[in-house]
């Protein structure tokens, strides 16, 4: 039996209107990956923030390697060997990787920064853990997956033994996730302990030695990794059996809603990010874009939704070119958008849920009257309705958006964009960070929207999601749609093959 690194006992934390953690007990052994799963708002992040000294518990105790202690702030947490990789990275973009890692721990002599020693130490850590990064590049120039490595190096540099990962894979491609798990294995082999939070149960089953399920702030059960199954975990999480499948309605696609013609786009360095992209999406149809992240999907969505200027080509909504329209005109004409980065683009965090749920329609009746005066009653009614339909877990519609759990924030955005009753819905990673029950619900809502004759353009890093929802699938590679399939005529393997650009090479 290996040593207990961490023991949290009977942790209770109450927020106004919510009991977020209700006598939760949780422990972590040396050399194990202990997964923490539960519905959105179950209290996972809260528990971890307590461990990291960001929240203070109302009651309960924490001991590390047998010694009881109270952690008042992140500094103390770090000193006790706890490291946390937040879902939103805490890096300083214009600083180099090296500077980001040593920040706050600089070694200096007469006020002059010594970068030699730290660089050596970091190289050692990189080799030992398979976390290879060029330490002299700026963080703003490296992709998300690599930034995460920097975060991990940062906490290892500070000597962490207990590593907390709150939904680390939500922003990763499946390949990057595999890399991360390799790193997990190397870390546990060195005797570190890892707490892993994820809504992707396949991943949890793959990597976790033990799995603790929490529901509504309470521990339901701690399972052994090899005695668990997806349906068992799901049932424990939700409290009743979960179907885990979408009912795809039989809808025959109608007229063309979105037509994209020969779209070209270059980025600020004059590198082509979209290259002669053409496709159509019909009413009542889901068009899925598959592809490794960073192959132009983000840019494609942003030229349609956000009115980003294009080099060449045309975008037609219901036969009308929207290229010269601003965002408001596009929205008013029936384009809705679930953005990929919900914090940056989706929510006004200090504003109430009610206000956030009408954002983008807030200028229309009945939310304002003819004199442009806000009708707060209507806004709140609308909010209450949407909150109950979408099962958003919140004390009230007047709660600020920042008080919601990550998954519930995502539900707010999905609910808002669907309640606008769009002609065309641009859904980028619509279920990122959302629990399985809610994922199922969102999928069914999308199918409902399809039944109502809406056109849906879906971008997702999750190939299963693309496969199960789409009628047609376009594979994007290096800014091009290199192949288009109907769902029936292809397989996951074949799409994966195209995603790597293999067929393109074969052809040349």
């Amino acid at each position, binding site marked *: 039996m290996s040593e207990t690194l961490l023991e949290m006992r009977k942790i209770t934390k109450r927020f106004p209107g919510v009991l977020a953690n209700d006598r939760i007990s949780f422990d972590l052994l040396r050399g194990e990956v202990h997964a923490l799963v539960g519905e959105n708002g179950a209290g996972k992040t809260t528990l971890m923030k307590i461990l990291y000294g960001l*929240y203070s518990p109302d009651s309960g105790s924490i001991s590390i390697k047998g010694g009881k202690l109270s952690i008042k702030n992140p500094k103390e947490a770090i000193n006790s060997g706890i490291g946390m990789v937040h879902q939103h990275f805490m890096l300083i973009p214009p600083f180099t990787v090296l500077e980001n890692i040593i920040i706050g721990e600089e070694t200096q002599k007469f006020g002059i920064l010594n970068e030699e020693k730290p660089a050596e130490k970091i190289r050692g850590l990189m080799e030992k853990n398979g976390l290879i990064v060029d330490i002299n590049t700026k963080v703003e120039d490296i992709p998300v997956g690599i930034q995460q490595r920097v975060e991990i190096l940062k906490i290892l540099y500070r000597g962490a033994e207990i590593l907390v990962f709150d939904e680390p894979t939500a922003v990763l491609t499946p390949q990057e996730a595999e890399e991360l798990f390799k790193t997990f294995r190397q870390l546990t082999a060195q005797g570190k302990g890892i707490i892993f939070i994820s809504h992707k149960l396949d991943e949890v089953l793959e990597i976790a030695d033990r799995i603790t399920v929490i529901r509504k702030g309470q521990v339901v059960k701690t399972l052994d990794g090899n005695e668990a199954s997806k349906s068992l975990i799901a049932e424990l999480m939700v409290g009743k059996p979960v179907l885990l499948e979408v009912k795809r309605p039989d809808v025959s696609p109608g007229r063309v809603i979105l037509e994209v013609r020969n779209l070209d786009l270059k980025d600020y360095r004059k590198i082509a990010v979209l290259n002669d992209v053409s496709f159509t999406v019909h009413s009542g149809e889901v068009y899925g874009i598959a592809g490794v992240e960073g192959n132009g999907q983000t840019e494609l969505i942003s030229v349609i939704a*956000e009115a980003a200027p294009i080099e060449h080509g045309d975008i037609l909504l219901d036969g009308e070119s929207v290229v010269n329209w601003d965002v408001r005109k596009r*929205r008013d004409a029936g384009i809705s958008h679930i*953005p990929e980065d919900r914090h940056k*683009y989706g929510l006004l965090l200090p*504003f109430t849920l009610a206000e956030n749920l009408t954002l983008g329609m807030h200028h229309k009746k009945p939310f*304002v009257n003819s004199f442009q*005066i*806000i009708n707060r009653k209507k806004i709140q009614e609308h909010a209450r309705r949407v909150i109950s339909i979408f099962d958003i877990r919140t004390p009230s519609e007047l709660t600020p958006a920042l008080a919601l759990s990550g998954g519930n924030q995502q539900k707010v955005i999905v609910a808002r964009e669907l309640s606008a009753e769009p002609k065309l819905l641009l859904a980028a990673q619509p279920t990122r960070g959302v629990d399985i029950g809610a994922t199922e619900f969102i999928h069914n809502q999308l199918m409902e929207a399809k039944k109502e004759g809406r056109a849906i353009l879906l971008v997702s890093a999750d190939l299963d999601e693309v496969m199960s929802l789409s009628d047609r699938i376009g594979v994007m590679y290096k800014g091009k749609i290199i192949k288009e399939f109907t769902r029936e005529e292809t397989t996951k393997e074949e799409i994966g093959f195209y995603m790597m650009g293999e067929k393109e090479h074969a052809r040349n």
Partner: protein
Amino acid sequence: MPGIKLRFDRYKLLEIFAPVAGFLASIVVLLIIVIVVGESPGEALVAIYKFSLSSSAKVATILSVSIPLFFAGIAVAFAFQSGVFNIGAEGQYYFGGLIGAMAGIYLHLPAFIHIPVVILFSMAGGALWALIPAILKVTKNVHEVITTIMFNSIALALVNYLVNGPLSGLGQGKSLEPQTAKIQSTALFGKLNGFFRMLGWNVPDYVYLDYSLIVAVITGFIVWFVLFRMRHGFEIRAIGISLDVSRYSGMKVKQLQLSAFVISGALSGLIGLQEIFAIRGYYTYGIASGLGFDGIAIALIGKNSPLGVVFASLLFAFLKQAGYGLQFYTSVPNSVIYVITGLMILFIVVINEIVAAYIRTLRKKEAV
């Protein structure tokens, strides 16, 4: 839920407590300085009291002094709500006041039209002076702090030149201070002192509680209504939170910034009303200066909310009066008094910020 209400109230209380704490701390510093310069702290306190709260006349004076401060605060706060740092209220009221005064001097209208007209001209002048920095910001991305500071100097120089040169009214008046011609009586602001006396508040004649007080009350209400009850204000507050989110939801971010900036300029134009149309009756570049900068501190202490600005401007008016009190009743040198009022403001702002930061961490710990 009742729990939420309670929490909110507790933080509100702390927030209100912040300026009070800053105020008390600044009094302590004041007493220390007074002791250092060799005066009796007791006498100093008496002096302050005598000059600020000792009689209804003194209280009325504070209210009177707070009027231009209120306009300054609300002008800056409006821009702050949208994330625009309008440091140019100073230049905007110099210029706005001049335009308003021109309308008062050269237009011939009956009083019931003339007064609204000079108010609107003052606002238009202020707006105009904000317009160029605003356009530079939204089209060329030139930071407003730099442009507005430069425009403050330009306004000062321009007004100085105009009042000494083309618009000089010397020869009519007896004063040697460079000034414009007299504003027509139809555009002068009458006093409300009689009205207050009727209500039983004994406001002596030398205190200026004039029409600008009415303008202030109406302005405060309109600003509150626009910001918190109208779509335009909602969008202005939204861009103050996140430009990206606002843009994604279809708001015309640049237009909103421009309008918030220009409205802030228009509000700045009101700062000079009392001095020009009630107190002096002519325009001079010697109208009280520095109010635009006071406005920044007032907006900060008032948390950019109209009601907060009301309290903050009263507090500032009190500080100013306290300064005069020291000047009159003690032998504390003038320069030291400026230091003291400056320090008091600094203390209030700093303690305010410390408490705000403390509330933020409390919120983090307990949330909401």
